[in-house]
Each structure stands twice: as structure tokens, then as C-alpha cells.
């Protein structure tokens, strides 16, 4: 249904129907603009490949491929037809490791980002909306988290909480939100100054209504654009923490492959495929999210596109 039709025949629609239709139209417009962004599409395709691989991992390689005891090939075997990405120090296929690792890296990256965005947006909007004591306190907390060096805090948290996938997600989530909170707070403050908030207050709107109906929709584009950029940082963080030996010992991720390769002396053995394969995967996924993030930012905030 074209927009002119919507304008001409809204009488048949209930208010809810109107909202739904409008959302669908907005989504349609967004996807159309996104399709016209070459870099965004490249990023999306690249990401799509990784997602398909991660989802299909059990179909390609059985879980037993990760089992050291069932590895039959020679250790540190260079890439060949049987082992396209060579083998590791225990004779496992590096391709199988990388494919299975994609599951954990993507999952941890996305989950940690969602956590970080939820915390960051909540704190950002609240500290921008509530002036005075509450806002000041939230602001100080944000500052505090912002100035603490991220890596030591993450290491301490990971040590205290123990080594598991959930804990890695929590650690990345609670250490990476302050930047988001700062950004959202600034945007909230500019929205708070708008007369439509004054109008909402005069209508009798409470804090919850003001924050969810007026502030949130106006900061959402920023949150979305920021999310895609933050995913790449989360994936890098997961890699870093796993490389430092703080990852989940029961699961393979790109970071833990790198760690294991490093520990096993892949560098002195000249086993470039061992470290190169997960490394390139991290770079490609980060690149994909960045390309998508820039494209989304450009569509949602046309002023940023020209920069």
C-alpha cells in the first residue's frame, strides 16, 4: 500500500493499525535506503556468511572434530586439501576450530553488546532526564567507570566471577557501557530542552511517559548506530579476554584459538595459518559490523553521512 493510499483511507484503520502501518512503512523506507548503500551491503553480506557458517557449524563439522583425543592428523600441518587451514598443535583441523569459534565469538559479541546498550541507554537517559541528585549520582558513576582502565577491571571481574561464557558476557557488558551512557546522556539533554517535553509535562505526563515516549524515540537512532559499532568492540574484547586465558575453557572461540596457538608456540613453529585464520576472521567480522554501522548511521542521521 502506497503512502498516499494510507493518507486517503485511514478511516478504516484503528489507531493501532495506523501505528503498525506506519512502522511497516518506516521499515520499508529504511531497508530501501540501506540497499542503496554499497558499503552497508558489503558488510551485511560478509556478516551473513559468518552467521550462516556459525549456525551451520554442527552440520559441517561434528563436535568431535574439536576433541583433542579424536584428532588423527599430524600437528602443525600446513594447509592442504584435507585440512584447508592446516592443523593445530594437537592435529585438529583449524578450519573446524574457526567455524565452531564463530558461534561463540558472535554470540558473546552480540549478547555483551545488548547488555552494554541496555545499561548504557538506561543510565544515559536517566542521568539526562533526572536533574539534581539522582542525575548527578548516575553521572559520577559513569565517570568512575569511564576512567577505570577497562582491561584490568575486566581481568579482575573475570577472575572473581570465574571462567564461563555467561561471565565473559557480563564482564564485557558491564565494562563497556559508560561510553554509550555518555553519548545517550548528551542526546537526552538536547531532547530535554525541546518544547515538546514542556508540552508533555503540561499535559500531565510522568517521568516514565516522558522518557519512553519522547526521549527514547529520539535517541534510538543513535543507540542503533552505536550498537553496530559496539558489537565489533565486544568481539575484540572477547578475543582479548580469551587470549589472556580468561575465556570459557569448555568452548572454542577465536580468542581462545589465538591463545592456544600462542601458548603452543605457533609463532616459533612458523604455523602462520594457526594464528592467521582466527585473526583474519576477527578483522572481517569487525569490518562487517563497522560497515553496517556507518551505513545505518548515515540513513538514520543524514547530517552524519556527509562527514
Amino acid at each position, binding site marked *: 500500500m502506497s*503512502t498516499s493510499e*494510507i*493518507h*486517503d483511507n*485511514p*478511516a478504516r484503520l*484503528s*489507531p493501532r493499525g*495506523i*501505528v503498525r*502501518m*506506519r512502522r511497516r512503512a518506516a521499515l520499508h523506507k529504511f531497508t530501501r535506503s540501506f540497499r542503496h548503500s554499497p558499503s552497508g551491503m558489503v558488510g551485511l553480506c560478509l556478516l551473513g556468511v559468518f552467521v550462516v557458517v556459525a549456525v551451520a557449524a554442527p552440520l559441517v563439522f561434528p563436535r568431535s572434530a574439536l576433541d583433542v583425543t579424536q584428532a588423527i592428523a599430524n600437528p602443525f600441518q600446513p594447509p592442504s586439501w584435507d585440512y584447508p587451514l592446516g592443523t593445530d598443535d594437537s592435529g585438529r583441523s583449524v578450519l573446524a576450530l574457526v567455524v565452531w569459534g564463530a558461534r561463540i565469538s558472535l554470540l558473546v559479541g552480540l549478547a555483551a553488546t545488548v547488555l552494554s546498550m541496555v545499561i548504557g541507554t538506561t543510565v544515559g537517559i536517566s542521568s539526562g532526564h533526572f536533574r539534581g541528585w539522582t542525575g548527578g549520582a548516575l553521572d559520577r558513576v559513569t565517570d568512575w567507570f569511564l576512567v577505570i582502565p577497562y582491561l584490568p577491571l575486566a581481568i579482575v571481574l573475570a577472575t572473581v566471577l570465574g571462567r564461563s561464557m555467561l561471565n565473559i558476557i557480563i564482564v564485557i557488558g558491564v565494562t563497556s557501557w559508560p561510553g554509550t551512557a555518555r553519548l545517550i546522556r548528551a542526546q537526552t539533554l538536547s531532547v530535554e530542552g*525541546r*518544547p*515538546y517535553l*514542556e*508540552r*508533555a*509535562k*503540561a*499535559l*500531565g*505526563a*510522568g517521568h516514565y*511517559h516522558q522518557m519512553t*515516549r*519522547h526521549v527514547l*524515540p*529520539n535517541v534510538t537512532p543513535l543507540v542503533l548506530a552505536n550498537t553496530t559499532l559496539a558489537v565489533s568492540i565486544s568481539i575484540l574484547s572477547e578475543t582479548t579476554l580469551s587470549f589472556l586465558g580468561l575465556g570459557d575453557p569448555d568452548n572454542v572461540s577465536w580468542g581462545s584459538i589465538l591463545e592456544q596457538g600462542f601458548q603452543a608456540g605457533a609463532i616459533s613453529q612458523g604455523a602462520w595459518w594457526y594464528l592467521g585464520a582466527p585473526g583474519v576472521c576477527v578483522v572481517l567480522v569487525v569490518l562487517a559490523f563497522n560497515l553496517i554501522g556507518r551505513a545505518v548511521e548515515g540513513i538514520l542521521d543524514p547530517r552524519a553521512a556527509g562527514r
Partner: protein
Amino acid sequence: MSLDERRPAALEARGLEVAFRGRGGGGTAWAVDGVDLALGHGEIVALVGESGCGKTTLARALLGLQRPASGQVLVDGAPLGYRGKELKAYRRRAQLVLQDPTGALNPRHTVYEAVAEGLRVHGIVQDEEARVAEALSLAGLRPPERFYLRYPHELSGGQRQRVVIAGALVLKPDVIVADEPVSSLDASVRGEILALLLRLRDELGLSLLVVTHDLGLAWNIADRVAVMYLGRIVEQGPTEELLTHPRHPYTRALLSVVPEMQRLEPVVLAGEPPDPTNIPTGCRFHPRCPVVASGEAARLGIEERCRTGELEILTVSPQHTSACHLAINEGM
């Protein structure tokens, strides 16, 4: 239409004072400093003054958006309570229309959502669409369905202001406070919006307080005019009487610089309105008063009182008051 003595005013300020604590060593600013003002049922009152005179603060205080330091806001004769529930109930009855309709509408809300917002805030779910449609038609956006899905940026300035007005009307208020409702609109659209406000008063019996610096607007629609200077009402009375026979020198000066009033010799007051953190003694207008400056006040023997005596509000005629010693001295 005028104030009915037997029925309490729809909205009234009694001895209202609003103070802002100064920042960085500045003293307390008395933005509103003892205001008595009543708005009768079905009456249009124009609150006139320069920017910084406290007229917007007074309007906010009357709407309960600003808590007074002392004094009372009376709604239908009963003092306004500031507890959450009481305020929320009051918000249904008194609505605000802001100066800049572009800013007053959330750019991400459709017209329908903007108008329905009041209903949703107050949990009125019955016949939402019918109520929105009625409010839009009342505000002159017909047929209302055509506007439901429009975004503010797709509308003209006049249409946006009509949406804001519809958003105020949807809760069927008794009182609307409009802060410079037409000053950001194109000249040819102004009259239409003012005509709409007049029609709403006539058809719905709304009481309207219009905050403005524009005396032409007051002449167009107001029943009564209150002139504010430095936190206080210095003169108020019926529009015809006040604007054609002003008693206060400040009102006279304001009138004389209205570009359309070429028959008056312009009295351009020097300087800006003084600082509300530092209110002069005596009559607060005396440092800029042309009557004092020309020595006429001295000749009449009131200069001493102008400079030091605390000024009360003097009655010129039953409806017309003026806070100036001249008002009595001229012996009318």
C-alpha cells in the same frame, strides 16, 4: 465578557511570588513578585510585557509547572495542590500552547499520536479516535483523517500550531494558557490562528490567558489586558479602556512604540528592563520612567514617593487598576 463577581475566577493568582536562586554568586531573582491576576470563565486576558518581565514564569506558575515561593494559585476558587494526584487532575483542566509549534511537536510522532498523547497520559482509552478527530476538527484541520499520519515536518507552520491546539483541546480543558501563540507564524496565518482562539472561546466557553509582547494581538482578541513590568502587574483593565487611555507611563511607552501607533509621539525608553535580582526601591519603574525623568513628577510633588514609597495598586475605575501615583493625581 468580564469577571463575574458571583462566580469564582476560572484561574487566579493571589500574591503570587516565584523566585529563582542565583547561580555563581548572583542574588535571588524575583521573576514574579507579588502578582494578583484573575481569569474569569470564558474570558480572554492578554498578559503583556517585555521579555524578562516574568510573564512566562507567571504563566508556568499558573499552570502548576513552577512552584511559587509564596502566594496561591486558585482554580475555581480552590487553592491548587501540588501533590502528584492533584496536579495530574489539574493538568486535564488547564492546557498550554507554546510559542514555537515546530519545537512543541515531537518530530517522531505523527499528528494522531501528538493529539492523542493527552488522552494516553490520562488513561482515557474510550473512543480515542473519535476524540482525536473531534479535537482536530475543532482546531480547523478538516477532514481530520487526512492529517492522522502526517509528521510535523510535512505541515505548514499554521497547521502545526493547529495540531498543538488540538492536542490541548482533546482533554476538553476549561483554561488554555497560550505563550506567544502566533509570534513565530507567518503574517498571513496569524489572523487565522487568532480567529480560531476567539471561536474556541465563543463555542466552548474556554478561558484563555495569552502571554504576548504584541499589543496588536491584545487589541485583536483580548477582553482584558494586564501589563507586567519586572515581576509585577503595573496596570490592568478592559482592553479598550487600557489601550486607548493608558494610565501607567510604562503602558504609554509600550503603546507609543507600537509601529502602528503613529499618532503618538514615540517614547523610546532607554536601556533594558532592569535586573530582577536587584529591584529598585519605591516604584520599580522609576529609573526608566519618563515622567520622573522629565521632572514632571517633581512638579506634581510625587517624585519622593516614586523613588522610595512602596507602591500599592490604585483603582482608576472599577475594572481598571494602575500601579502609579499619577493614576490618582490626574484626578479621573
